[in-house]
């Protein structure tokens, strides 16, 4: 579970009891679910590790499709199995299909490593970053995705509801997930078809027209909690060659052309029950806000109060390691549409268009230095 060289798969500093729990969670995270252990009947992946190989980004073979919500008012296709499509089905069952009239988008799994640090960032930090965008000359106007949270959510340190009862959410491509617990419960249920006490109904497929049955939890609370702890306690991806002159120069360019406005090099955590996560400065290269990425990235699907063209700033940490788990190439942006970092930059529109244009105006050697910097993350 530990690979210090690559900076993934290992835990933060833990005490003995926490290490045992981390190890238990590690085993559960990388276990393969079968029909006898709750998989399906409709699913996207057979285990957490199928999408998050080495705690890294996903591969297109486990890409997921969400459908049914085209505005901030909510999902109108819940009776047809929304929000997530079970692209695969156990033998004898029919995989789901997007119902007529529903809009949809495809999302490739984001990196898992370091999510405990992101969860420990207090709302105040996120709101301060958003406030700083107010007069951004490049037109950056990021904002948090406020959403309702599930009944089983445990309120995070430094998290407070808005007057309308909605909370700042931060995980997922649309930043519509409140906490790691919610994400893990969602993933078991929607990605694997595994029920829990938190989400006791199997996913529904209107094509098969079987009943959406409540079932005995197929993952027990202890196992689910160990997976939550495992994700929470994963270390952050460590940059490589950070002192290399080209990397340093590329990092300066990254700041100069405005990338760092959204892909913030540093954030700070607040209080945490886990000592190694408390009051830490770390380098995720995200602001946890959603931004308008322009019409090319508008799939007419959304979650929470994000608009359809708005996406959460993807943490860039571990970016250079992505090809390790993506077959030697890259599948970047929310649906893997970019096959290289340069292509991903060039696909940035909307609030990121100015920075993308500045990147295009750089000399070839400067572009190369900036790309070298990104690959070092």
């Amino acid at each position, binding site marked *: 579970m530990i690979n210090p060289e690559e900076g993934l798969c290992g835990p933060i500093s833990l005490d003995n009891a926490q290490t045992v729990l981390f190890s238990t969670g590690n085993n559960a995270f990388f276990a393969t679910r079968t029909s006898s252990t709750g998989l399906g009947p409709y699913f996207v992946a057979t285990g957490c590790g199928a999408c998050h*190989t080495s705690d890294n980004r996903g*591969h*297109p*073979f486990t*890409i997921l499709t969400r459908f049914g919500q085209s505005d901030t008012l909510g999902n109108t296709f819940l009776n047809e199995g929304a929000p997530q499509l079970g692209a695969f089905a156990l033998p004898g069952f029919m995989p789901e299909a997007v119902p007529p009239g529903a809009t949809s988008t495809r999302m490739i799994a984001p990196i898992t490593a370091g999510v405990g640090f992101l969860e420990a960032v207090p709302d105040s930090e996120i709101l301060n970053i958003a406030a700083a965008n107010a007069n951004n000359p490049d037109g950056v106007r990021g904002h948090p995705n406020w959403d309702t949270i599930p009944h089983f959510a445990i309120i995070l340190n430094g998290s407070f509801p808005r007057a309308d009862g909605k909370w700042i959410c931060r995980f997922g491509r649309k930043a519509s997930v409140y906490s790691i617990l919610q994400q893990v419960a969602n993933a078991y249920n929607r990605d694997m078809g595994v029920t829990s006490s938190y989400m006791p109904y199997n996913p529904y497929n209107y094509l098969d027209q079987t009943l959406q049955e409540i079932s005995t939890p197929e993952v027990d609370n202890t196992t689910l909690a160990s997976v939550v702890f495992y994700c929470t306690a994963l270390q952050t991806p460590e940059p490589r060659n950070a002192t290399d002159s080209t990397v340093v120069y590329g990092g300066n360019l990254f700041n100069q052309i405005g990338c760092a406005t959204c892909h913030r090099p540093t954030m700070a955590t607040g209080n945490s029950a886990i000592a190694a996560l408390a009051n830490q400065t770390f380098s995720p290269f995200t602001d946890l806000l959603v931004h308008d990425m322009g019409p090319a990235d508008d799939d007419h699907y959304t979650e929470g109060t994000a608009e359809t063209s708005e996406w959460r700033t993807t943490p860039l940490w571990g970016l250079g390691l992505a090809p390790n788990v993506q077959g030697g190439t890259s599948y970047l942006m929310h649906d893997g549409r970019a096959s290289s970092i340069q292509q991903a930059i060039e696909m940035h529109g909307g609030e990121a268009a100015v920075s993308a244009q500045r990147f295009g105006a750089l000399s070839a050697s400067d572009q190369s230095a900036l790309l070298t910097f990104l690959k070092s993350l």
Partner: protein
Amino acid sequence: MKIIVAFITITISICSFRPAMAQIDSTLLKSPASTKDTLKRTLTMDAIYNRPFLQLGKSPISIGGYVESDWEKVSTSGISLGNQFQFRRFSLFVASTISSHIKFLSEIEYEDDPSGDPDGSTGPQFEIEYAALDFEFHPLFNLRGGMIVNPIGAFNQNHDGPKWEFTDRPIAMSQMLPDTWSTTGFGAYGKKYVKDWMFGYEFYITGGFNDSIIDNAQGKTFLPAAKSTLSRFEFSASGEPSYTAKISVKNSHIGELGLSYLSDIYNTWEIEGAPVDSKRWLHIFDVDFNTTIPKAHTNIITEWAWIFLQVPPDYTPEYGNRQFGGFVDVVQPVYQGKFLDWEHATFNVAVRGEYVDWNVGNFQATGQRMYNDTWSVMPAISFRPTPQTVLRFNYRHEHTRDITGNTIGAALGTTAGYSLGLSTYF
């Protein structure tokens, strides 16, 4: 590093002795019981009876068995479980000549992981691996029925620990093909020889696999997963017969070539007469060859298998529809003769090369290759005080990639380590 130097030193020292006979030739093994067939020359298919037995007085019953135990210390991607002491197998054979041309053999085995699936293992078990009755009508036509070991390749038939110079079974023959794949069924076999040539055939109709081969804790098409379903000895998941056939040709100067094939409908496609799925086929092709190079007495054993199966079209690509793998063993006897009180002791040096691809093909989503493969090289030295007993020391260097080609993870990347094992017939 010291261990590697010692390994090389011992190997070079041993190589300075004169060549001797390879010890994995099962014909060297004694067989005092009268359970062999009426043809004296053997093929791999005879391995099930070609073991050392002891006859109990004037009783028609002969007994035998073998035991296999190892120490190993390996690490994967730098992570080691430390020293592991493994009691892998204890096997007891009971054979009897019931009457002229009718014989029976059974094998009861204790195995540390009979499922072959480390992620789905229910722990060590005692199990009946073989229990079949043979009627010999003619050397070319014998009937066999009961719980049999399907002749999918040579290793499945000839897998006893004492016959091999390696502590581990070949990966492809144990984790792609299910080793000791036994089922209930009936069939015929026979053999004939003319001068230097020998021909053998086997054909069986048996129970088959089940849905677990594409629904298991390994997360890949994994035929050994079906071994966990003990009900297979009474209940065939598909209700359809599985067919296994093997032909073998041997020339006493060239070697033995075996070609085997298995076909099966592996899934439960109807429940109480009502169809719930389409029938899905499994096809296995296997080729094996073994020979001993004259003069040098170098023994070469190789086996390669190809698996093709129908996987539901809307199923995760983690469960592939094609697999390929095999191994090559080269065993060089370097000394045979008296050693201490053993008159026919033998030292061998050996090496095994092996490769398995559990998911041949490309991702439909990207067109990229699916990996999920392993290659391994395992040099070895072995000492046989007698032909029935082996003490072996192996070094393994193995490399494993997951389906995306990734090598970072607890069970991925490079595995390296040593094992020391003993195995003996008794």
